[in-house]
């Protein structure tokens, strides 16, 4: 698709949109927007070869789960374009990044802004934890650690069928605590699955707080290399570095880009909450107002009109 905006602009739009949504809804996955904005903007705006969306701009309501009788069932993958030989496929493994991913879909013109109004509303497909029927999602990844394995299987199958499109898995660093992640890397390496690459948001945060306080994971770059992946490490907010990392040769091996990110990038005010950043709620109206003004100023926008919210 033709990019009408710069990736920097898309990233900024993601932060603003998630910020506004979080303010209006009295809480949200704000920190994930800080760490992931450039990465998702990079994926959708330039790194992935995606065709035009095949889905309506305003997401359809929840259409039922897959079953033998549900003939009209569709995943949300159509927002990433058609399934064909040449286009890439994307799994967003940390499904709790859904809000940020939806914001990205809006910024790149694949979903209407109204879509975000349906976020976490009963009967909506725009679910809080991205389901496979949610916009931009193709498989369920809410249980962390299964995304890379699924991507490896799909990539093996695509290669076998002679498809040129690649498979990308967007991951979070907390997933390295799951044993399955390592099983996936070793299998991808063993089978030479090199049409598979992963971009991992290394924000060193997880639900309980800083990863080092929850479960130390050590030098994950070395661990991934030892398991057979080609690893590139970059500053997650440096788009030039992301571009160079994506160009890393990885014949016969999967590529894993470790994107070291700041969980408060663009919203320095959030440092007051460090290290409890997984889901930001406001403790009081005063705090909400204070955060509204301070973060808006940092983003260079007007504070959100909270109105009746």
């Amino acid at each position, binding site marked *: 698709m033709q990019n009408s905006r710069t990736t920097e602009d898309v990233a900024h739009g993601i932060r603003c949109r998630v910020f506004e949504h979080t303010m209006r809804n009295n809480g949200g996955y704000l920190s994930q927007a800080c760490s992931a904005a450039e990465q998702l903007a990079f994926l959708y705006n330039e790194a992935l070869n995606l065709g035009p969306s095949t889905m309506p701009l305003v997401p359809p309501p929840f259409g039922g789960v897959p079953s033998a009788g549900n003939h009209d069932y569709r995943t949300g993958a159509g927002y990433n374009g058609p399934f064909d030989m040449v286009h890439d496929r994307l799994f967003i493994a940390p499904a709790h990044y859904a809000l940020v991913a939806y914001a990205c879909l809006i910024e790149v013109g694949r979903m209407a802004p109204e879509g975000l109004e349906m976020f976490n509303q009963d009967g909506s497909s725009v679910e809080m934890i991205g389901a496979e029927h949610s916009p931009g999602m193709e498989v369920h990844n809410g249980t962390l650690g299964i995304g890379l394995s*699924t991507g490896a299987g799909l990539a093996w*199958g695509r290669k076998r069928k002679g498809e040129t499109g690649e498979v990308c898995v967007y991951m979070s660093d907390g997933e390295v605590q799951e044993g399955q992640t390592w*099983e996936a890397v*070793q299998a991808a390496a*063993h089978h030479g699955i090199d049409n598979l690459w992963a971009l991992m948001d290394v924000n060193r945060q997880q639900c309980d707080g800083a990863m080092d306080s929850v479960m130390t994971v050590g030098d994950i770059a070395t661990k991934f290399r030892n398991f057979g992946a080609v690893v590139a490490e970059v500053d997650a907010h440096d788009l030039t570095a992301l571009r160079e990392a994506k160009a890393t040769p990885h014949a016969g091996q999967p590529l894993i880009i470790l994107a070291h990110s700041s969980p408060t990038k663009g919203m320095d005010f959030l440092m007051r909450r460090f290290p409890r950043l997984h889901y930001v709620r406001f403790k009081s109206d005063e705090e909400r107002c204070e955060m509204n003004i301070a973060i808006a100023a940092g983003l260079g926008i007007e504070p959100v009109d909270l109105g009746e919210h």
Partner: protein
Amino acid sequence: MEMVNRPYAKAFEDYAVQHPEVLCLSADLTSSCEIDGFRDRHPGQFLSLGMAEQNMLSFAGGLGLAGFRPFLHSFGVFLYRRPYDQLMASIAYPRRQVRLMGFLPGITTPGGMTHQAIEDISVMRTIPNMTVLEAGDATEVESIVAAADSVDGPVYCRILRGAVPRLFDTPLEIGRIRVLAEGTDVLIITAGITTEEAIRARAALNRAGVSVRHLHLNTLKPFDAATILGHAEAVKHGVITLENHLVTGGIGSMVGEALAEAGLPRRLIRLGLQDTYAHGGSRHYLMRYYGMDALSLVRAAERLTGQQTGIDEEALGAVRVEAVHSVVKAEAL
């Protein structure tokens, strides 16, 4: 009775070579699951995933997404206990055409608790979108490959390996209950290896004047409650289920649910593992120890009918088990 050596090995190879979108996956139990020959002769259609079942199940989900129909080979217990989350999220929910070939069901392994799939039916049948099949003889092992692969969705199969008796002369058809006897006193419902026990018990019971109706199930989900209710209605004294599995959640439970939902008043005796783990030992020893053999069936029939048959171990041992086509024309019913 004819014994067939490694019926799965040949059946799978014959089928898979005709269907290039079928893939053979193994988790380090390749010869144990009789696919070593296939691996050697068709390496391009074989994927070794190592001792990493969680990855194997999600990986298979990805293969399904790419349009392949992977057959996963391992001991049944390894296909759902550790990778249950992956089974749910990567295979069952999205209805991937993944075929889970579970070897060594129940107490058919001397491997003890870690190797014995004693709650797999219970687990699998509660999973939405899942089909559950169980092979009871060599013919069913041979025909379960194509039958499983005809299902538009995931399938879990209990597979018998090694030397397997041939009881039936017609292939397994999904949803088709085999009516092996049409007696009027007690209804015996079996599946898998327990069917041979029931055939043995039935012959002895018939001689003692107890008229047995006998059903063999190979499709555990979808469960044909209506047909079973019809047969339960046709007997005077009640129903006995005998399963190579815990009595909770498996065939006994399914029959009990069917009777209760229909309001059909029939006594039900559920034979199988009674809320207990098993330990390691030979199949024959374990079936006797846990009350899953022909003699246990006879005693259950006596409880239902109130009749002492005088049948003992020796009498049962003397029963010659013939292939079903020579006992009663099963599929004619």
